[in-house]
């Protein structure tokens, strides 16, 4: 120990500051240095800092104890204020540790997610993390809506208050959703699945809420809660995107430093048991092999001749048009199906139910068939694997969300008679009151049906397709079943299913306030179903993809869905005349007009204040201030980037200096030895 100690004390004065942070071994030493004789600048009295020092030392326990004894001898008697500070930092630390323990206990499904990540890799785990995020988002949205709309509604309904007289034409006020006469039992089931009958006139749909005359303005609360709901979801997604983006930026886009990070940080020390270890080893090996192969392919692609390149690019362009053609055909099919379904909406019985669900059936069929075809196209295009996955995602996203848009625009054109609210059926009430006496409830019902159908299809696929496939593959072992093999958990398609379901919920919440709650339950059921199929039926993926960039992309697509839902909401709130027969906005020309009406009932001072905020005298300085803040942040970011580059160059230069000095030392040593040898002769 003695020579080491002397060595450290020599280095100590120069490197004492650095050693306090990290004890790094010198290039030829196995054990880290510790500064046994710290300089005068380090005589800190703050006891908590020395405690932090001790634990972060990479020394065995015996040495740490000795260090502590040395430090305790050096610390003078602490005054009362310092000991109070010590106690405070200690209690803060225990509170923080306790808080972290509670938080990790409350985290939903933590152990399950660890198990999934250990067995199937980061890509599949990112899907389940995304699903958990959506469950939590929907749950808190439901609490928001429940607190501001549902509970006041229940309270006000129980309190007997006068119904506001609604004015308008007699015909427009006709609306009777309650079922007439004897209701057969199976009609209840049909009603449950399609939201009609006894379910229509309930808290589930818009039509039940009314404009009671009381101090709590329910219509205003309804509208503002919907707006806040969208803002809340937007903030949550952006915060989460920020975290994902920071990770992507910090890791340099994932492409640089990829091999080093797989090799140095890829192993999960929590893997228990031989099976999990072998799986993880297989995963890492496949990941490395895929990346190495991708690199080799890139080098080969760069070495293509001009004519081969031309052929490849023309092939890619033609395949692009083929893909566009497939998507357009599917969209046209959805449009035709929606028109047909709306035309035959009065039919009874099972056939009527099929016609009602026809748009959903066609959408699901299209979403199943078109990605399969696009996969075949992708095998012709020969893009690198990461680009292939992103392209597949993009095409599937366009199809899914466009299908939804076609459905909605068809509905809207029928409700508002193709936009001409003064002709034909819409002349009387400015909306088609014969077919849609309460059009908001109808739209709510459509969204409700889409959500339910999505869940039923997922569960049916599980029972009818995935379990039998595994049973077949496991019990028969001929060539066909080996070629088909066990299912692989395809992450992009599943993520798009989630985004689609969430977009439907966002679109429908204004008209069906309980939809977030239904969606929370649906996603929880989906989590357990997918987990079951993952562990029972799926094999680990042969090709893994980088989850860091794809996390960001999933959230971007979710944001796109939110944007579509926002546009739908804005259009409904601002343009279409609310139903006169139902709902809290029945006497207003459009839903938005409740805000100006309530505004003028506020006190004068508040009105002037709000006018001031909206005026130019306030917004222009605010805009200028935000520009200044943004410029500052951009400058800061560029300065950090430059200093990182500078430090890297410095490290390189230091390395070169070290090599130069070593060479000089060798030369000098040889020169010193030569005269000795010549002297010894």
């Amino acid at each position, binding site marked *: 120990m003695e020579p080491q100690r002397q060595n450290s004390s020599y280095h100590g004065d120069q490197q004492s500051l650095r050693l306090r*942070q*990290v*004890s*790094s*071994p*010198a*290039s*030829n*030493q*196995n054990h880290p240095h510790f500064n046994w004789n710290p300089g005068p600048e380090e005589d800190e009295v703050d006891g908590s800092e020395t*405690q932090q020092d*001790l*634990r*972060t030392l*990479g020394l*065995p*326990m*015996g040495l*740490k*104890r000795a260090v*502590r004894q040395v430090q305790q001898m050096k610390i003078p008697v602490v005054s009362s204020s310092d000991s109070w500070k010590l106690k405070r930092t200690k209690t803060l630390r225990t509170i923080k*540790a306790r808080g*972290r323990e509670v938080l990790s206990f409350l985290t939903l499904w933590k152990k399950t997610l660890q198990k999934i990540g250990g067995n199937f890799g*980061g890509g599949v785990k990112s899907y389940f993390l995304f699903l958990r995020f959506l469950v939590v988002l929907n749950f808190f949205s439901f609490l928001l809506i429940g607190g501001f709309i549902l509970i006041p509604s229940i309270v006000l309904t129980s309190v007997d208050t006068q119904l506001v007289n609604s004015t308008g034409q007699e015909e427009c006020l006709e609306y009777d959703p309650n079922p007439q006469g004897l209701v057969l039992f199976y009609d209840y089931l049909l009603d449950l699945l399609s939201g009609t009958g006894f379910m229509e006139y309930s808290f589930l749909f818009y039509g039940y809420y009314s404009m009671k005359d009381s101090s709590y303005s329910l219509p205003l609360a309804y509208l503002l809660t919907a707006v806040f709901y969208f803002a809340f979801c937007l903030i949550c997604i952006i915060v989460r995107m920020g975290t994902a983006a920071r*990770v992507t930026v*910090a*890791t*340099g886009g994932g492409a640089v*430093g*990829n*091999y*080093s*990070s797989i*090799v*140095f*940080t*890829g*192993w*999960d*020390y*929590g*893997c*228990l048991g*031989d099976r*999990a*270890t072998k799986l993880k*080893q297989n995963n*890492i*090996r496949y990941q*490395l*092999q895929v990346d*190495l192969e991708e*690199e080799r392919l890139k080098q080969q692609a760069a070495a293509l001749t001009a004519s081969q390149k031309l052929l490849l690019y023309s092939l890619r362009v033609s395949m692009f048009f083929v893909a566009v053609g497939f998507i357009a055909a599917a969209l046209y099919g959805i449009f035709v199906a929606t028109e047909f379904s709306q035309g035959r909406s009065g039919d009874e019985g099972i056939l009527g139910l099929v016609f009602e669900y026809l748009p959903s059936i066609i959408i699901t069929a299209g979403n199943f068939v078109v990605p399969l075809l696009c996969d075949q196209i992708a095998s012709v295009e020969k893009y690198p694997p990461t680009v292939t996955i992103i392209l597949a995602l993009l095409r599937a996203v366009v199809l899914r969300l466009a299908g939804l848009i076609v459905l909605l625009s068809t509905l809207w054109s029928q409700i508002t008679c193709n936009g001409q609210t003064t002709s034909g059926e819409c002349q009387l009430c400015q909306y088609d009151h014969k077919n849609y006496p309460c059009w908001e409830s109808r739209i709510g019902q459509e969204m409700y049906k889409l959500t339910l159908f999505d869940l039923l299809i997922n569960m049916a696929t599980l029972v009818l397709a995935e379990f039998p496939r595994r049973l077949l593959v496991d019990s028969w072992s001929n060539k066909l079943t080996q070629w088909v093999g066990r299912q692989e958990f395809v992450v992009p398609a599943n993520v798009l299913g989630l985004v689609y379901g969430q977009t439907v919920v966002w679109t429908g919440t204004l008209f069906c306030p309980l939809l977030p709650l239904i969606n929370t339950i649906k996603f929880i059921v989906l989590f357990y179903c997918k987990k079951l199929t993952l562990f029972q039926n799926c094999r680990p993926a042969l090709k893994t993809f980088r989850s860091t960039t794809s996390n960001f992309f999933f959230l971007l697509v979710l944001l796109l869905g939110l944007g579509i839902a926002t546009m739908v909401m804005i259009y409904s709130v601002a343009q279409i005349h609310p139903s006169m027969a139902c709902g809290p906005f029945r006497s207003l020309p459009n839903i938005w007009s409740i805000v100006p009406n309530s505004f003028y009932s506020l006190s004068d001072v508040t009105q002037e204040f709000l006018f001031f905020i909206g005026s130019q005298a306030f917004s222009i300085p605010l805009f200028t201030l935000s520009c200044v803040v943004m410029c500052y942040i951009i400058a800061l970011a560029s300065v950090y980037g430059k200093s990182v580059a500078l430090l890297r160059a410095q*490290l*390189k230069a*230091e*390395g*070169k200096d*070290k*090599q130069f000095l070593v060479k000089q030392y060798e030369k000098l040593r040889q020169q010193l030895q030569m005269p000795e040898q010549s002297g010894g002769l």
Partner: protein
Amino acid sequence: MGTTASQLGKDLLSEYQELTFLTKQEILLAHKRFSELLSKDERNLPNTRVSMERILTLPELKSNPFRERICHVFSTSDQKNGSLSFEDFLDLLSAFSDSATLEIKSHYAFRIFDFDDDGTLDCGDLEKLVNCLTGETDDTRLTTDEMRQLINNILEESDIDKDGTVNLSEFQHVISRSPDFVSSFKIVL
């Protein structure tokens, strides 16, 4: 000072809490599991060392491909045989615990990956490391070409001063850019 009888004294417990990242429950659990590895008469002796073979029967370490390196790094035995005393065991759990800092984890990860104990990761260390990660049997290793390509890529990405080896600072630079390291470098009893 070491383990006394079958119970940990209160001041010893608080000392361990100060010197490691473990909570009181974790230290007591570690003591229980460590005592189970000892035979009856060994339990009453202070400062017993458990041989590496017996440590490796713990389920948390049994299938870990780095198990032998971990024992060697944390062992303070004079014979360099990887045997651990109770305090070495606590050091091990502290470095792999939930609340350990990134610096301590990367420091010990570096030492675990340094198979020849020379303070840097050269090509031989990297090759052994990759073999541990992919599997030790012949059909699970990478081919020689793939290995060469991989090691070249790793050195190109992480060797900043271009001396052909990865030293601790370069290693920590790579680790700091990976967000999953802290959560995956964890062994909890």
